[in-house]
């Protein structure tokens, strides 16, 4: 029997199906939309098969071309990657279900191809164990994202897509330069191998390649001065794409930074410096979100803020901080994806993205509004929802050492949470308690668009009331990450 617990399948299967869409499109115009669902369904199976392996061994490694890791590209899934792969695959699966009804505009089959590639690229970026391969995956992700952002082909989409493309390309080039610099320095591209070999370099020598890679990934990861494309691109994309972009793509890029910073560079001198990025991102994102009238733009800015939050938690550098960061990543992915999906449904019915036009939705689209509320609560960190536990952990981790700086950090984080709560509550007030100006026929979104959101909300609720396994898992993931040796030794010495 073939062992399907192989992380490469996570990439190969959807790619195969993506090509299949292109083949079948001329004959099965209507039918191809089911292909991504099948692909990600299979992927989900693979991930479930992977879970016990990873839990037992801590890491699962797969090689390509039958050659040992430092020489051929390898794929490694450790606890942290599994964490994100699970979310990415789940979101891919659910959102592709959502797409069944949501995508009506032509060329639908092309949309499905790009969508499949986008999610595949994200998964790829997370599981790969090779730096150049990460760049390629990064490109797969961003090029499909460029195409999807421009999918509507209207004014906003074109502008947002172009800006995103230019910035993304610069980012990719910077990333590539950084990778190449590392290659020049070490003569290898495998992450574990680089990590081994780079230890002999001084702090100064490591800084420049790190800066390039950091900047390159930071552009996709929406860190503060580099994230200007995000608030344009996320709203311009179709809502299902926005939910993937916001939910997991930025997270995947941040994952890349985490990998590079901790596993490869082991860069604790810089890591504290990164707090600044986290906090600035948080502040700018949340404040800008507060002023938005367009709901999707608001959510996009909120994504920036959330990214800042978990990046900040990561850059605390302690196991507890990283644990908080992972929990918050998960919370943000699930909640923000839900929000975009629900909002997509609402926009689908109302026909407007302006928050003021959502008045009275709470009565006409009860389920949607309810799902929105739960997801928003979790995002804000209201107890007893999952976001509360993650925020709790982040604050606890910050205040492990009490001094003026940590107090100031906490004040900023909490103040921004407050702003976040303020604008989400404002939206909810409009939705639930404001009377609609004119009576419009507004119907509940179609069932297939609701099911993914419902599933996500159920997951959030389960995690809310039974968070312990995830919390423990995140703790182990953080410990593995900080320990480094698990990853490096198993990649280099394993098999």
């Amino acid at each position: 029997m073939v062992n399907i617990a192989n992380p490469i399948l996570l990439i190969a299967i959807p790619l195969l199906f993506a090509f299949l869409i292109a083949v079948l499109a001329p004959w099965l115009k209507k039918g191809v939309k089911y292909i991504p669902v099948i692909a990600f369904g299979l992927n989900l199976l693979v991930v479930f098969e992977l879970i016990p392996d990873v839990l037992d061994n801590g890491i699962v490694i797969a090689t390509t071309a039958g050659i040992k890791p430092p020489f051929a590209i390898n794929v490694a899934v450790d606890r942290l990657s599994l964490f994100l792969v699970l979310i990415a695959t789940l979101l891919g699966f659910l959102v592709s279900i959502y797409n069944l009804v949501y995508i009506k505009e032509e060329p639908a089959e092309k949309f499905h191809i790009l969508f499949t590639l986008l999610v595949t690229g994200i998964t790829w970026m997370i599981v790969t164990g090779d730096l150049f391969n990460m760049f390629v995956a990064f490109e797969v992700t961003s090029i499909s994202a460029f195409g999807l952002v421009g999918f509507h082909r209207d004014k906003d989409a074109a502008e947002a897509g172009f800006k995103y493309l230019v910035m993304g390309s610069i980012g990719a080039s910077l990333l590539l330069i950084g990778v190449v610099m590392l290659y020049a320095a070490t003569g290898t591209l495998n992450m574990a191998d680089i990590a081994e070999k780079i230890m002999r370099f001084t702090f100064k020598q490591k800084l420049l390649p790190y800066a390039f890679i950091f900047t390159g990934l930071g552009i996709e990861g929406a860190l503060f001065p580099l994230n200007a494309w995000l608030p344009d691109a996320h709203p311009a994309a179709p809502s299902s794409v926005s939910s993937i972009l916001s939910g997991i793509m930025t997270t995947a890029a941040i994952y890349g930074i985490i990998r590079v910073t901790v596993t490869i560079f082991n860069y604790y001198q810089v890591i504290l410096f990164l707090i600044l990025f986290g906090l600035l991102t948080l502040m700018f994102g949340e404040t800008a979100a507060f002023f938005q009238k367009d709901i999707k733009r608001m959510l996009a800015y909120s994504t920036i803020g959330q990214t800042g939050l978990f990046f900040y938690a990561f850059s605390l550098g302690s196991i507890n901080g990283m644990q908080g960061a992972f929990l918050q990543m998960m919370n943000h992915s699930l909640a923000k994806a839900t929000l975009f999906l629900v909002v997509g449904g609402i926009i689908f019915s109302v026909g407007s993205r302006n928050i003021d036009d959502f008045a009275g939705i709470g009565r006409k689209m009860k389920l949607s509004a309810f799902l929105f509320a739960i997801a928003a609560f979790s995002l804000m960190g209201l107890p007893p929802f999952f976001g509360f536990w993650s925020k709790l952990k982040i604050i606890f981790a910050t205040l492990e050492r009490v001094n003026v700086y940590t107090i100031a950090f906490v004040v900023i984080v909490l103040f921004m949470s407050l702003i976040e709560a303020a604008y989400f509550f404002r939206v909810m007030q409009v939705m639930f308690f404001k009377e609609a100006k004119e009576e419009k026929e507004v119907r509940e979104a179609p069932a297939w668009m609701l099911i993914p959101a419902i599933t996500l909300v159920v997951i959030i609720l389960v995690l809310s009331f039974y968070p312990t396994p995830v919390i423990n898992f995140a703790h182990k993931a953080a410990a593995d990450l900080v320990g480094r040796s698990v990853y490096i030794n198993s990649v280099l010495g394993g098999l």
Partner: protein
Amino acid sequence: MIRKITYGIFLGIIVLSLILFFAAFPFGKNKMAVGKYYLKNDINQTGAANVVTAVTLDYRGFDTLGEVTVLFAAATGVAILFYVLEEDKKKRERQVYPNFVVRVGSRIIFPFILLFGSYIFIHGHLTPGGGFQGGSIIASGFLLLYLAYPGERVNRSKLSVVEGIAGITFAGLGLWGLFTQGNSFLFNFLPKGQLNMIFSAGILPIIYIAIGFKVASEFAGIVDDMMCEAVCSGGEK
């Protein structure tokens, strides 16, 4: 002006720091680590005379799969951006007539271009060349045809079928290797053959041929989309 100077200085600083960084790894010095391994083991492991091809398709074949995917995504993206509904297309049709020499000349040259391109990607594992290069050359042949006959169009959906099948071949070969043979993706399961022969290096030539078709059809598709944008919809809005 101040902006220009400022950014000039900024970029100067960046360049300076890059130079300083690379001063530690000077030009021409042998920096190989994995490269040595490839050069040493290439013949046993892959049987491809061209080590670059071996690296591209075997050791780092996974990259190439990504590369193909990127191209595929870009082609799809361009198709999305230039997508026009069929009925709109017809309305905007506009005929341009290039001169006679171009039309006849391109008709004569086109088969040779195809042949040349095919040669390059078929011999990718032996000579400097390969699927990308060959594919691009074939696509340039299509570009030539478009220059000569702006009114004519390639069957876009067939192109996409070709690219899909080529992609499936690549990924499918990889999966075949994974499932049946080496329990490793893109495992080179075919016999290695003799060095410098056309039937050598196992699956590499097959992949390169698939890539050749794929790249050719994708670039042709992009060209087609852009032609359509320029010719059929010319001056819209």
